[in-house]
């Protein structure tokens, strides 16, 4: 690239940096306040130690940042691999409009949740150890998850570069990365399968500490299957919100296909939930856990399974049958709550259950957790308002034949 092009890109970039849309909105104000408070909290965290802000203990080592942002949040980022699977592998063109938003959401989710992980590490300056190869804990599940996170992020970046290139008018770059797309998608799906289940495997050695209703050797499989409907439910909710927020920049195709896509996703969710439910039943029978059912823990378990697995499954099904988008949205919200319940049960609520003490995160942990999510949404919005995520690709993309359909 010659000088003039660089400077012109710089100008363009600076131009784009300026906020688009109203600045003083309730959302922005709240976000800024929460982010400022988090900054203060994080200052204490790094100068006084994790214990000063976090309600973790020697028997419950992980707090909200890992258990909620990482373990739960990553399940919701599962939409990216499911949608790319449907569009690029199965060739289901119908879902193409949502590829870019989902991939962007996935990419940001991984970036921010990996960030949350860093906040939680006691000695984050050593994080490079398992990466540069002077200390490989090869039998460690977390080692595997960490590597898969990194590799998956690279795959997601590759998938998203064409969008950035269309925005910045880097035609060559766009072409190069498009040619890598299928490989990135395939690799990304394989990595996702593994790290979604890997997150569950982190708890395999906590056998003695997790209530038997939630612990089983099949946790990895359950985590994987549930990431399918977790990811898609989040797509349903976020697409529905985007319909309103990004209305004026959304391509007509995106607007028109919305209902059809949501309803079809609802059907897939219903199937995935049904498979998940069948698996939990099998696991339950396999674990011979009947005696626990008639205890408070058993009731709580039933709330999760009946209330937030079976019920959303039915509601999805009805929504699909009746072609009712509202029902599908309601079901999506329920299944999101169900996933949060499940992950928090395993990692926090039913963890060290025999202590019989309710465990609440500190308000400071909570604020930082929320801040991470809010900033992620901010960045998402910034990108979506500028790059062709919801709207159509710029005209020059379409001129060339053959690649018209690329994401």
């Amino acid at each position, binding site marked *: 690239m010659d000088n003039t092009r660089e400077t012109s890109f710089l100008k363009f970039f600076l131009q784009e940096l300026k906020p688009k849309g109203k600045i003083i909105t309730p959302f922005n104000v709240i976000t800024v306040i929460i982010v400022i408070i988090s900054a203060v909290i994080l200052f204490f965290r*790094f*100068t*006084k*130690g*994790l*214990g*000063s802000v*976090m309600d*973790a203990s*020697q*028997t419950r*080592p*992980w707090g909200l940042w890992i258990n909620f942002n990482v373990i739960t949040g990553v399940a919701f980022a599962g939409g990216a691999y499911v949608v790319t*699977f449907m569009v*690029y*592998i*199965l*060739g289901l063109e119908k879902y193409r409009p949502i590829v870019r938003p989902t991939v962007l959401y996935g990419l940001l989710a991984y970036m921010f949740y990996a960030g949350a992980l860093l906040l*939680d*590490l*006691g*000695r*984050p300056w*050593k*994080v490079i*150890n*398992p990466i540069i*190869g002077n*200390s*490989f*804990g*090869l*039998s*460690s*599940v*977390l*080692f*595997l998850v*960490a*590597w898969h996170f990194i*590799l998956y992020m690279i795959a997601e970046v590759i998938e998203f570069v064409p969008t950035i290139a269309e925005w910045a008018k880097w035609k060559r770059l766009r072409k190069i990365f498009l040619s890598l797309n*299928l490989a990135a998608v*395939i*690799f990304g*799906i*394989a990595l996702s*399968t*593994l790290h979604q289940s*890997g997150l569950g*495997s*982190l*708890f*395999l*050695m*906590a*056998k*003695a*500490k997790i209530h038997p209703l939630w612990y089983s*050797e099949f946790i*990895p499989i359950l985590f994987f299957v549930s990431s399918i409907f977790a990811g898609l439910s989040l797509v349903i909710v976020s697409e529905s919100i985007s319909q309103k927020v990004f209305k004026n920049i959304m391509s007509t195709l995106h607007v028109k296909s919305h209902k059809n896509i949501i309803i079809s996703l609802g059907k897939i969710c219903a199937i995935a939930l049904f498979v998940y439910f069948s698996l939990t039943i099998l696991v339950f029978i396999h674990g011979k856990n009947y005696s626990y059912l008639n205890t408070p823990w058993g009731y709580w378990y039933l709330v999760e399974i009946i209330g937030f697995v079976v019920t959303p499954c039915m509601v999805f099904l009805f929504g699909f049958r009746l072609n009712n988008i509202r029902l599908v949205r309601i079901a999506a919200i329920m299944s999101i709550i169900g996933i949060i319940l499940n992950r928090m049960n395993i990692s926090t609520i039913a963890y060290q259950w025999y202590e019989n003490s309710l465990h609440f995160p500190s308000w400071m942990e909570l604020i930082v957790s929320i801040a991470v999510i809010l900033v992620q949404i901010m960045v998402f919005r910034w990108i979506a308002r500028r790059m062709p995520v919801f709207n159509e690709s710029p005209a020059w993309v379409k001129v060339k034949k053959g690649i018209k359909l690329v994401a």
Partner: protein
Amino acid sequence: MSLVRRDFLKTLGLIGASLTVGKSLGATTKKKNKTEFYGVLIDTTRCVGCRACEWSCAEANGLPEPTEDEGVKIRKTSVSRWTAVSEYGTEDNPIYVKKQCMQCMQPACASACLTKAMNKTDEGPIVWREDKCMGCRSCMISCPFDVPKFEYDSPNPKIQKCQMCFERLEEGGVPACVENCGGDALLFGKRKDLLEVARSRIYNNPDDYYHHVYGEHEVGGTGVLYLSSVPFEQLGFREDLGTTAYPEYNKNFLYSVPVVLILWPVFLLGLNNSTKENKKLNEKKTDNHG
């Protein structure tokens, strides 16, 4: 565990990450299985609850000195107390139990550690290495005995746990607690020999002992072994931990990783091709019709 490692190596090769770890790993896996690990036999029937072990532990490891008013009740180890003596039993018949890291034969903590900061040495003790640890606390999640302790109140936190005086062992010594035990309750030696001693004590005094050596089989065997006069449950030991070595619980998952990484992409690529072909066919059909 060695199998897991080897398989996993293959995986990494597949990922294409250029990792050059083969050498060091191969070496450790071979050596480990040959040596007989050291351990400590703790005979709670002999312990008088003097807590001399706590003092000597603190001195040997640079921990703050124990205080009298910590007392002997039911206590847990902590960041500043690697070993702690608790009192169980009744007032007339107290039973004192020293607890610390069990120095598992196949430690969950080390297998959970992604930096190998937790590391089982060839001698048997599991040591923690400051220069490697990134403070993720997976070791704490995984340890069935809740042994590793984390310094929550430090900006430069460390994991604290008993390391069986690894450095003293290297110099040919014995753990400080064993050396200073006031009641002849602690015995240091090769684990195999300790088991013999434990069994013969039970055999010779069948009425004084509960007939079980805690740690012989628990979680795949531990380096620290316990004898007791009452069922171990009454001394705060968990008897529901099973005899499976903890790293085994990860095995299925770790084994499946290379399989998924090879088969999934191949399958996906095949699927992708067939979709493409189908599409072409369909297009042709519509062309013909048109």
